């Protein structure tokens, strides 16, 4: 077995070496603000490491056990889960609605994988480009699961939304790549699957500005 001399010299112990007395933790940027929180949303906890995320996950109920109308929010970098937040106001969301009766067993895994893609920053393939000059900002601000009497909804919020103009094509492609990743790698559907049906939608993107225009024809991207 190869011994890492440097690690030994630093006496680095991950949680895998010593679950009780580890001395390094795995950073994560999910740390909601402690102030200015909204009245109807209760801040449960903030965390800055993968280890703390799992401590939380292992001690709260999954979406399938939530009350009939509830939401879990997981937002990062002190971003509030509201359109009004500076990081969200020009953005939009990918979402999927799933009928409850057919997805009670599947929703917990879908939500877990959604959170892990958010924490791991793997939704956006552009971020992992091997071009050393490309250091784009992450487009994801947070993820939400909602329970309603007859369906679940899982959403991914983004910082920006494509305008539809021709010069916005690059951003549209990047947003679409996030949606495709969500549909296939995270939710586990084939890329070509048609998902809409009674109480179900496709994986759809809409800007927050369009979502506000209720009744009017809103532009959607579907993958």
């Amino acid at each position, binding site marked *: 077995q190869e011994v890492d001399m440097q690690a030994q010299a630093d006496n680095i112990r991950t949680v895998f070496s010593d679950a009780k007395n580890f001395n390094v*933790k795995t950073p994560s940027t999910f740390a909601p603000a402690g102030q200015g929180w909204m009245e109807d949303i209760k801040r449960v906890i903030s965390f800055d490491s993968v280890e703390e*995320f799992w*401590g939380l996950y292992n*001690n709260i*109920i999954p979406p399938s056990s939530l009350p009939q109308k509830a939401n*879990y929010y997981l937002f990062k970098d002190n971003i509030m889960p509201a359109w009004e937040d500076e990081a969200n106001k020009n953005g939009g969301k990918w979402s999927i609605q799933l009928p409850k009766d057919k997805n009670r067993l599947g929703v917990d895994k879908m939500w877990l*994988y959604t959170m892990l893609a958010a924490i791991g920053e793997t939704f956006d393939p552009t971020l992992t480009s091997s071009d050393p000059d490309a250091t784009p900002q992450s487009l994801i601000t947070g993820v939400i699961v909602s329970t309603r009497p007859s369906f679940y909804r899982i959403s991914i919020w983004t910082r920006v939304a494509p305008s539809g103009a021709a010069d916005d094509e690059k951003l549209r492609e990047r947003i679409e790549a996030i949606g495709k990743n969500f549909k296939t790698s995270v939710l586990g559907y084939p890329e070509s699957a048609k998902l809409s049906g009674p109480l179900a939608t496709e994986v759809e993107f809409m800007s927050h500005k369009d979502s506000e225009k209720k009744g009017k024809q809103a532009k959607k991207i579907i993958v």
Partner: protein
Amino acid sequence: TSTKTQAIAAPLPSALATARVIDDLDRISYPDGIQSPKPELNVNAKQGKFRYDRDFLLQFMAICKERPDSLPPLDAIGLEPSEQSYAL
């Protein structure tokens, strides 16, 4: 002195509270059977802004089970059958 008495009486801080954040993934060696984060996800990662694949993250599930000190009891935050929201 009273300071000394306090120091003795204080509970031991948990490892989570005292562990420092990893700033260089290359210096971490994981035990046999534990896989590191996929290196291709972190070719241009900035310090402390790492990306982790799902398989790496799932390895923590069975180990990190301790209830966080700061997690309030769920019934105390009104986990009842009505419109409720919880930020993680």
